[in-house]
């Protein structure tokens, strides 16, 4: 059974996967070169999607208008073509997270202060 500490670690891993370059490489499932559908590529960045779901559900309860997988994929992929490798998805998300923090686009969910991109990625995980 997951303890609160392990749950927090998982959540952290999830967030770092999206935001922290140093950690991201260690938590990404694999660096497969194959190009995947956008949603799969984005979610492939997460090593522990379970840990993201609570946060994602909380985000969607606050922003119900984004409660649609396709809409979230569009927001996260920012018009990228239909297929993407996981490395590309990771780089895309890392840039977006950095921009979010630079621009003050942060949200607080269940006590976590995260970027809006991270919140949306968690939301996507919660809907998948």
């Amino acid at each position, binding site marked *: 059974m997951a303890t609160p500490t392990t749950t*927090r670690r998982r959540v952290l891993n999830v967030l*770092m996967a999206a935001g*922290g*370059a140093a950690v991201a490489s260690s938590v990404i499932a694999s660096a497969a070169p194959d190009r995947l559908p956008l949603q799969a590529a984005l979610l492939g960045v997460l090593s522990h999607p379970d840990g993201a779901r609570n946060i994602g559900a909380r985000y969607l309860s606050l922003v119900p208008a984004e409660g649609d997988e396709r809409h979230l994929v569009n927001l996260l992929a920012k018009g990228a073509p239909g297929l993407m490798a996981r490395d590309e998805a990771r780089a895309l998300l890392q840039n977006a997270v950095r921009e979010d923090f630079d621009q003050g686009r942060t949200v607080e969910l269940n006590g*976590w202060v995260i970027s809006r991109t991270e919140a949306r990625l968690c939301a996507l995980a919660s809907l998948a």
Partner: protein
Amino acid sequence: MLIDGRTIPNGQTLQTDVCIIGSGAAGITLARAFSGQSFTVTLLAGGDLKPAPETQTLNAGPNVGLPYFALEYCRARCFGGTTTWWGGHCRPLSDFDFEAKDWIPRSGWPIARKDIQSFRTEAEEILNLRMGHWDPKTWAADSGLKELPLDPQLFETRVAQIISPSSQRRFGTIFRKDIESAANVTTYLNANVVEIDTDETGQTVTALKLACIDGPRFTIVPKVCILAAGGLENPRLLLVSDRVQKAGLGNQHDLVGRFFLEHPRFEAGTFYPVNSDAGEMLYGPHKLLDGTAIKSYFGLTPGCARAEEIVDVQLRMERLYDPAYKRSRNSVGFNVFRRMVQQIKAGEVPESLGSSIATVFSDIDNVALATYMTAFKKGLIGPMRLTARVDPTPNPDSRVTLIDQRDELGVRRVQLDWRLTPQDKRSARRVVELFAQAVGKSGLGRVHIGFEDDGSAAQWPPSLAGGYHHMGTTRMSDDPKQGVVDRDCRVHGMSNLWVAGSSVFPTAGSGTPTMMIITLALRLAEDVKKRMA
């Protein structure tokens, strides 16, 4: 000269030029500064050379406000005062601390830092600190430890020096010889002031009435009286001295005992760093090679605090340890083992060697685990606890009052009603939010915030505690309607009564109190010396 007050004949009257009530950091600093002067000085200690239960009970009283320490043991009632138990953290107040801030009611000091600078330098010398050494960049360069690279527009690193070893903090020990050998200073131990008497105008102190537990009662007649008994006892003595001034001395505007300030601290969240070396950064505690110990904090820059209109909040990062490591370190076997090692290192034969070895072997698993994890730093885990410390809004409802119950000497006890304000909680929450955003922006990690700002000043996280800092209860102001003492620490409306210690602080500030207590005591000593010349 040190005299046990219990040896004074009952009913005797003693004359002195200057009487200092209290022998803690302020009282001993004053007495040392007066040493060698042409006037006589009497220094009063409410207990013996060490704290004792029967004298500590004189401090007892109920807490009716936020959870707080037992008053009985908040202050050491003995020669040396609470320096006897002091943690030794030293950090000066900043320029910004002294400023009046229009978003913080009743903030600001009537003096500026420049007014006390020379005394602060002297205080650093007394405390044997690295003088003028408060810039984190200097410490980082000296120690090889790194500052966390947060946005300098938002956050600053603040360094506190910790007096080490602990024996160097105990004024009663380190300055005893100075006090004993001062020809013009007489110290009375176990001598408790029970009332400050005045002339019939209520403006001049004429006598101090003293009592000893199970001992005599006697009187001291001073020309000048300095109250230096701490943030709870100072207002208590002023309030009980109501023979002429019915509301108590200096209390014509109902200010004595109000504005009780502490530095509230509590667990505010957890920082999850990206890199595990955050624990090796400046935010210790660290003991450096030369024995100097430091501890660092984050605080908002004045510009950011001004823009956000919040009170000062410092964040401290504390390393968290693996639960197994904590358990093994706290085990009996490991503690006996550690003590044995310390004694052997000091060239001593460990006490009760046989039984100590038996204890270590009976708990060998814990000893082995703790030793291994300590040696290889395996006990550390990634996250770091964030503890917030608030410089609270001065609050007249946070106060010390007299109750009907009396102590063993017949003096009315005090009751503490410690309160904070919604602004304090809002500020703490905002600072943690800003910290979380700053570490995210710098790519350093993420923060989980552990408390809500619910707008209530009554409910705080269960970890809420103070720092044994008792301030504000005889606050300083040029306006008698706003403060009990003036900028020179003289009680408004009194000709020969001064107050020393942190009870005069109008705000708590971002520094630690003891160094400021000593600084102000040195300044007051200079003033009194001029008056006595």
